[in-house]
């Protein structure tokens, strides 16, 4: 069998890549997708832990995570549409109205 460690390391790699994209990409939608990537990585870890313990709690939690991710994606994309309409750009560095 595949040791749990492997899954965990994979989860960490995916999470790290997600954070990397979160910081270094400039398109708002891409940044949003990186958030989804991070969530997926975490889901993987949850499921990976549920297997050796024999309980299904991890999987139930994953279901909830997916639901919340969906809701969040809906609202977030709505906001992104608004930003795109108002600022005519999808470059996150142009949305700097909070500058002091």
């Amino acid at each position, binding site marked *: 069998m595949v040791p749990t460690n492997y899954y965990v390391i994979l989860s960490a790699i995916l999470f790290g890549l997600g*954070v990397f994209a*979160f*910081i270094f990409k*400039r398109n708002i939608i891409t*940044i949003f997708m990186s958030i989804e990537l991070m969530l997926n990585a975490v889901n993987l870890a949850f499921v990976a832990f549920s297997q050796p313990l024999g309980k299904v709690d991890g999987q139930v939690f994953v279901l909830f995570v997916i639901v919340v991710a969906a809701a969040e994606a809906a609202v977030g994309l709505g906001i992104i549409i608004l930003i795109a309409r108002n600022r005519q750009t999808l470059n*996150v*560095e142009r*949305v*700097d*109205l*909070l*500058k*002091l």
Partner: protein
Amino acid sequence: MPKYPMLEFLWIVPLLPLLGSAVNGLFGAKWPNKIVNWVAIGSTGLSFLGALEAVREFFESGQVLFHEEFFTWIAAGNFRAGFDLQMDQLTVVMVLVVTGVGWLIHIYATGYMAHEGGYYRFFSYLNLFMFFMLILVLAANYVLLFVGWEGVGLSSYLLIGFYFLKKSASDAGKKAFIVNRIGDFGFMLGMFLLFKAFGTLDFAQLFAKADRWPADAMGHLGTFTIACLLLFMGACGKSAQLPLYVWLPDAMEGPTPVSALIHAATMVTAGVYVVARSHILFAHAPTAMLVVAIVGGTTAFFAATIGLVQTDIKKVLAYSTVSQLGYMFLACGVGAFSAGIFHLMTHAFFKALLFLAAGSVIHAMGGEQDMLRMGGLSKKIRWTYVTMLTATLAIAGFPPFAGFFSKDSILLSTFENEYGGRNVGYALYGFGLATALLTAFYMFRLIFLTFHGRPRFDEHKVHVHESPNNMLAPLMVLALLSIVGGWLAAPAMLGTGPDYFSKFLQPVFGGVEAAGAEAEARSLEVTLAIVAVLTALLGAAVAYWLYLKRPEKTDALAKSLKPAYSTLLNKYYVDELYAAVVVKPLLWISTNVLWKGADIAGIDGAVNGIAEGATAIGDGVRHAQSGNTRSYAVWVVVGALVVIGVIFFWPFGGKAVIGMVH
């Protein structure tokens, strides 16, 4: 009805002038002079009557020391200071002098100040002074005495600077207060030391305790000596002795009644009173006694020399006051406390008279104070002349006037002094005698320059007129007192009976005084008396010759002794010395160190620095708010790292995480 109503309510005596002061101060601005007069003279007069009644009751009770605690002012731990008043023989003398002479001067002032502005203010301050002075003499502990002490200093400042729009007057007021303060510093330290040593500042308890202690040896700086020297420092400030006398001549800027009351009869005698009151302490400190005597003797001589050449009539009297105060301290310093108090009383009479009469002269001359511009006034202002002559005879020490008895008793005690050895006594006697010579000289010089000779002023410009009755009447009364005031001691001199005055004060000064007259002391006394009178006559004669017979000689003398003359005229340059040595450095320190250094750089710098620091921090932190979302994203990651770090490394958090999985 209590047995001794006035003594039970002794606090009324000081309170009445306070009431008068308050009423005049608050409401007097709108009142005509008449009503202000009634309030001022009435309150002082009633106070005098109250004092008389209290004294009468005191005698009736068999001269038992009366001590009453009216209310507790400070009660802290073991220390208690109350508004305690007492009445004993010494207080009798002081309170009668203060209220009596004070009342007479109030009456005089109604005439003198009649045309001045701020009339109500003057009497308000004058009454305030009376209140504090009475507190001072009636106090039964050092703390309350100090309240009166400070209060009279305050009133003196207010009254000296009465014509505050004149710079010299307000400067003089400040000078008086500040120099006094220096003395007060010593007084307070003395009080603290006494409290530390004896645990109480109440006179009766303190002196009872102190009496049981051994006396300090001569030259040894024990507790007694240091405390007494400190108290004496305060007395030097208040009573204008070396080196803190410089304020008194300047204080002549105040109106003449002020000079008479405060700087002749009462306030300046407060120092003598304190030394006399603390005689038990001084008796245990022979070094301090010696210091007092020497300072008194030298001040007497020193001030007399300056008075020789002054031309302002009030300045002559001011230096004369310093000189006579020196006599009183000399007396106390050689142990003759009752002689000192006796001289205090007679001095109050004739010095107040001298000042009031001088005021009358000034009033007659329309404000002129320079003697060189007077002359030939004896026929024009008869009564003033007669009373002033009386006072001069008294101060010079001619019998049977008051000054003769008191001064003589001092000189005798000085001659017989044992403190520090007989030689010290003889030296001090020499100073005293020389001072008597000079006193007679300059007083008669004053008389001759002012009243005799040809008028040295333009008779058409100055209309010389006698003073009104309300100014003359006090002069008369004081002249009478100057004549008869010394007769209490006369029987001792004549050999027919005891010296009633010192007999009266015996219960107070009992253990300390030199014993009464014996046979050989009697002949010594008579010899010394004759010597003193002859000296006074010599002084008067020289003045007569110089100023009446050969007036042109004075200028020649002045020219030939130019250096000495100008030194004396410039008061030995003491004021200039103080200005250079004390005032200038102090001002420099105040400006540069305290103002520029501590205040502007330090305190303002700290406060402003905090403000500037806050601004600087804000300026720095501002850059975090860049508005750039990517930077914010990085900060999110930083936060996540911190949280994970806490969970991982924090002792409890980390174990909990790992433990959970177990």
